[in-house]
């Protein structure tokens, strides 16, 4: 049964841990700490215990309940476990401000994170019940309960991000007062949402649930061949010479800089690395990149960002064509990220990031063969994980690879690293669709071992039988281990052969599960795909697939979802926010989610340049949200890729937001736009709350702003201030009536429409932003200035300029 247990101190006792959080906030953010009037921290445990209710209740009582100090909330499991009502309401009663406005921040360990506390709790519960079950699951977390009438969402997010949750290992969500008072969070389906399945012990593999590549009933009885298997593994060479370290600095840099502890240096290194690549990109570099992509798991994708820059066109063209070549030869998907902004001087940036792919894109070649041919199937590579570091081997392997391609000896290559043999074969449908014979003479153990578990490093090659000897010689010469294990055929069957007799067999349709996929109609999809009825545009050349909840920056894993987007810095002057959405894990997608991502990207100052979206079976609802955002913010949303795969009964979307870090004073356009807009002056020192507000650190109504004009500090208003205003009014041939003082300490003129002024002014007051009403925009191109002595001076804008 599913249950959720919340444990907190009784109202008779103080909560030192919650007080500690408050103390820290008070030191860093005094204005926020004033808003938090009361706080409590509760420990939360989500459990699924495979036992009858009475046993579970007994175990919870014995394990969680400290009769003296604690209250335990379990929904309806332990009646009157706390106070009068048995709910959090009892705890809220302790707040000195009643009825009060309560907020909750809940955090929990992410599904793929090792949860030591959960293991101990599971052990405790199982010890008390006197039995163990592999089905039992536990996840731990905490709930921070706060009271504060003036707390707004951004405050809570700030607390959650900075003081409560570690976003790399924990996810968090905000709970409203209604949710806290209700007991719906104790319901089974709510609890189940946060529990990892037993298969997710090490890494999140949520896709396994619905991946069509793992049909329920395998067409071939593979267990039948197990008894036939004997041991033999490919031998590895003992005398592989070591390669020079500097030659491989590219790879080692990639690895070294991806340390979780050095995120900043990761960004820097990657950027410099890429610049280096651009400037010294030659054939050798291309090969290195090719090898790198071969070494990295297939989940990687190549991002190519196009930025107007100062590098010579020739260099850039060469680089881009090389990238194209690499992408083609390694079957790596490429996403183009266009970052074109007028007037921005920037450097070209190329960077690599990865996303978990549903299928190996390498198995979907651009041009599937029309007719079959007979090739010899060869596994080339090692089974030893430690050999991933053997760069010599990789270099030799790549060298044979290139020679084999040049000599037309290689019909196809399937990237096998990290996948089982069965997955590789099933993935290589386009190459193997006409049938295959798998010989297990003498290699049964190898088969047995790798049929279900992953091959660590290598490829499955289809070799032209005419060039067989030549390839074998090349591989042997270079010490690359290989194993021949069958051939492709044209019989339309899959057969397992030993000693010339068939041990197991199936038709190719059964093997690839075509029957089941064809019978599955499109109506079985969760919702009608977005592009089903619309005109299909030309699909993009490279196909990308997105995972449900995680996005990999090799080799560290950063989790991203709708609630927790990540922002990386691909180059020194731009930020890139990434969000992956899937209906498998996320509840829904609203404009607030995207708003949050945009704010995160602009938090360091800057401006959103573009939003790119990729879909896999996109939903109409998602598109509506994006259209709404496009309308409201005026930012162009580009769909860089979309695909429709009816076989995959799930929907994904990946959003990338690119923001340019620019001077704070170019946050918005500088011209005054609309007649009757109100002009305010905000002080402009960087420490001022006004600047923080403009940069998006605080507040939420920045979008209501029509313009922001930077004003230098000046002793004489007739100079800089009037000039700045004149330039701001010139473009639309407008005028303004303003009241100016002689001495001006600098800052910003911002214009706000009459309708929005109340909301914005209120927010300024709440956030302590100083502001002063200066005047209004008028339709006639004259600047009417009143000075401190109420003298009026009227100047023609054109004359001024």
């Amino acid at each position, binding site marked *: 049964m599913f249950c959720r247990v919340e444990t907190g101190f009784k109202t008779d*006792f103080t909560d030192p*841990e919650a007080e500690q959080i408050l103390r820290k906030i008070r030191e860093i953010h005094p204005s926020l700490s004033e808003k938090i009037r009361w706080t409590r921290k509760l420990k939360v445990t989500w459990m699924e215990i495979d036992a009858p209710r009475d046993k579970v209740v007994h175990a919870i009582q*014995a394990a*969680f309940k*400290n009769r*003296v100090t604690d209250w335990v909330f379990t929904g309806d499991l332990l009646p009157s476990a706390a106070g009068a009502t048995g709910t959090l309401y009892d705890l809220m009663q302790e707040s000195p401000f009643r009825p009060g406005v309560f907020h909750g921040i809940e955090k929990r360990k992410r599904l793929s994170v090792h949860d*030591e506390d959960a293991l101990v709790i599971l052990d405790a519960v199982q*010890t008390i019940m006197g039995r163990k079950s592999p089905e039992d699951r536990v996840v731990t977390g905490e709930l921070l309960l706060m009271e504060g009438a003036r707390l707004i969402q951004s405050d809570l997010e700030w607390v959650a991000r900075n003081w409560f949750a570690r976003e790399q290992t924990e996810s968090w969500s905000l709970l409203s007062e209604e949710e806290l008072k209700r007991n719906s969070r104790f319901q089974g389906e709510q609890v189940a949402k946060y529990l990892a399945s037993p298969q997710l012990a090490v890494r999140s593999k949520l896709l396994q649930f619905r991946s069509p590549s793992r049909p329920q009933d395998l067409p071939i009885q593979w267990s039948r061949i197990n008894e036939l298997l004997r041991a033999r593994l490919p031998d590895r060479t003992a005398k592989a010479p070591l390669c020079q370290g500097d030659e491989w600095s590219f790879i080692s840099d990639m690895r070294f800089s991806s340390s979780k502890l050095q995120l900043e240096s990761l960004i820097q290194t990657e950027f410099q690395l890429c610049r280096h690549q651009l400037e010294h990109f030659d054939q050798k570099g291309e090969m290195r990149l090719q090898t790198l992509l071969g070494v990295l798991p297939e989940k990687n994708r190549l991002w190519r960002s196009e930025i107007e820059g100062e590098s010579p066109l020739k260099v850039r063209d060469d680089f881009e064509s090389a990238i194209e070549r690499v992408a083609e030869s390694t079957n790596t998907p490429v996403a183009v990220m266009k970052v074109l902004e007028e007037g921005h001087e920037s450097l070209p940036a190329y960077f690599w990031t990865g996303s978990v792919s549903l299928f190996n894109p390498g198995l979907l070649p651009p041009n599937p063969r029309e007719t079959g041919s007979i090739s010899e199937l060869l596994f080339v590579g090692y089974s030893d994980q430690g050999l991933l570091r053997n760069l010599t081997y990789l270099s030799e392997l790549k060298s044979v690879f290139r020679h084999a391609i040049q000599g037309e000896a290689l019909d196809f290559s399937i990237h096998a690293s990290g996948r089982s043999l069965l997955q590789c074969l099933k993935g290589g449908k386009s190459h193997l669709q006409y049938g295959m014979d798998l010989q297990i003479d003498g290699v049964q153990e190898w088969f047995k071992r790798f049929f279900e578990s992953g091959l660590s490093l290598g490829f499955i090659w289809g070799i032209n039988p005419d060039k067989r000897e030549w390839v074998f010689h090349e591989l042997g010469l270079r010490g690359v281990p290989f194993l021949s294990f069958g051939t492709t055929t044209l019989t339309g069957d899959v057969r397992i052969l030993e000693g010339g007799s068939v041990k197991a067999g199936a038709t190719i349709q059964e093997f690839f599960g075509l029957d089941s996929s064809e019978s599955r109609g499109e109506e079985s999809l969760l919702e009608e795909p977005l592009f089903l009825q619309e005109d299909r545009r030309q699909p993009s050349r490279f196909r990308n697939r997105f995972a449900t909840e995680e996005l990999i920056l090799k080799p560290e894993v950063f989790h991203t979802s709708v609630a927790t987007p990540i922002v990386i810095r691909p180059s020194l002057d731009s930020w890139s926010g990434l969000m992956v959405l899937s209906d498998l894990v996320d509840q829904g997608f609203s404009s607030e989610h995207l708003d949050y991502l945009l704010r995160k990207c602009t938090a360091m100052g800057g401006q959103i340049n573009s939003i790119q979206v990729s879909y896999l079976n996109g939903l109409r609802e998602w598109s509506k949200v994006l259209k709404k955002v496009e309308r409201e913010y005026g930012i162009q949303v580009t769909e860089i890729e979309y695909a429709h795969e009816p076989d995959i009964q799930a929907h994904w979307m990946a959003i990338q937001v690119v923001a340019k870090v620019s001077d704070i004073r170019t946050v918005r356009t500088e011209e005054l736009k609309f007649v009757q807009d109100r002009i305010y002056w905000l002080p402009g020192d960087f420490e001022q709350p006004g600047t923080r507000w403009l940069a998006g650190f605080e507040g939420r109504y920045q979008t209501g702003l029509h313009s922001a004009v930077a004003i230098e500090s000046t002793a004489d208003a007739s100079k800089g201030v009037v000039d700045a205003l004149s330039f701001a009014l010139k473009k639309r041939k407008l005028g303004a009536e303003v009241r100016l003082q002689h001495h001006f300490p600098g800052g910003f003129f911002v214009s706000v429409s009459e309708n929005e002024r109340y909301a914005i002014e209120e927010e300024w007051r709440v956030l302590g932003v100083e502001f002063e009403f200066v005047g209004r925009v008028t339709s006639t191109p004259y600047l009417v200035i009143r000075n401190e002595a109420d003298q009026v001076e009227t100047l023609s804008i054109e004359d001024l300029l």
Partner: protein
Amino acid sequence: MSSKYRALILSAPGSRGERHFEHGLNSVGFDSEILSVADILDYRIDLDQLCLKYKVLIVTGGNTYSSVLGGGKMFAIKMQHLFRWNLLKFAERGGLVLGVGTGFQALLHMNVFGDDFTLRINESAQTESRWVKAVPIGNRCIWLKEMGTIELPLNQKDTEFVIEPGAFVEAKGKIERLGLACLKTGEQEKIIGLCDPSGRIFGLTPHPEYFLNWTNAEDWFMNPTRAAAPGQGYAIFENAAKYCEQ
């Protein structure tokens, strides 16, 4: 001591000070043995075995099981539900029990002293690492016989002794009546040690095992002539040895 009595030092993942206990107990004449939770299961030491083999049981302190579910809670669950040890019965049959730090908390969680008391996190929410002056009360506790004021190191997060607020008067009366409180701090008179009515089971928050030699004290160099003298924690183990000899 002519015939050596055996002492069991029970350790768990995250516990500390086992070696200090071993050194202290061995130096007063015990034959001590450090066993982990897994060892207890392997050797199948149930309550009868425990009573037969061992005269003294030490429940060590430290951050056992990462203090998940509260300090010492998991340790208590293991003893209660996995080993099925009843420490009161062990004491009835002549055994001595000492719980230190979170080991003391484990004893509290096992309701050895009743279910109305516990230790809770201190106000700073930080681990307190300091020396406390402890004053024994009464003379029932075997471990504290004939001892005056002692000074012992404290290293714990949960140091505040609290009584069930719903039954405060009754619980307070029980402490007074049965003389459970056997150790208080010097100045503020906070309870830092409890013993059961038989005086054989003793739990305390400071760590006697870290003060076996005078040089363990912070200011030992102020009295260099005493450098070779045993520390005050040593006297506690000596009392246990004396009791076993009688």
